[in-house]
């Protein structure tokens, strides 16, 4: 069974700080996605990475897919209160299934 370990599970920081969320597995994934979920809403896709070593930037967010396609990280620079939410990584397997990590609940305080 493929599993994705996401860490940390909870993160509370001050506005302006930087943070990194990690997503690790012993399995290889064909793609890795990051979603953000706000209370009472469904997850919304932030990025998809498919190539080992790939780095994608979305404004203050930087996403990296590990060289071996087993892990990924999300780095947020100068966090803002609007970044507060649940961040989910999801690995795509060959069978077309998305395997989700446990999520990281981020709270950015003013």
């Amino acid at each position, binding site marked *: 069974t493929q599993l994705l370990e996401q860490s940390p599970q909870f993160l509370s920081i001050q506005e302006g700080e930087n943070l990194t969320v990690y997503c690790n597995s012993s399995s290889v994934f064909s793609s890795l996605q990051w979603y953000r979920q706000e209370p009472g809403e469904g997850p919304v896709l932030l990025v998809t990475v498919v190539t080992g070593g790939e780095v994608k930037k979305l404004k203050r967010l930087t996403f990296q897919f590990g060289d071996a396609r087993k892990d990924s990280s999300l780095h947020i620079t100068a966090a803002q209160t609007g970044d507060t939410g649940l961040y989910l990584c999801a690995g795509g397997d060959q069978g077309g299934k998305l395997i989700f990590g446990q*999520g990281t609940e981020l709270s950015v305080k003013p």
Partner: protein
Amino acid sequence: DTAVSQTPKYLVTQMGNDKSIKCEQNLGHDTMYWYKQDSKKFLKIMFSYNNKELIINETVPNRFSPKSPDKAHLNLHINSLELGDSAVYFCASSQTSFSGSEAFFGQGTRLTVV
């Protein structure tokens, strides 16, 4: 227009009852899904349909029965509800069944079994 809409948003029911959740997508996507999110926010796939055909069926009790009358609709019927079925159920759709395809989620249905 809401891309993926599911109803109802909240559902409170007694143990043993049968209930349905409806889902519709207006994105023209081929693939639709049901996910379950537990109290710890862990999201797990239950079913996936591609052009009305079941392609993923995870280890889910057979009290749960999905139905896709056409590729824009995927409903979930649950028989003999149990306390452990309490969770948020999300419908989603994607353009293709490729796992790297972006999934668009509905707002979720919070099911509470009492």
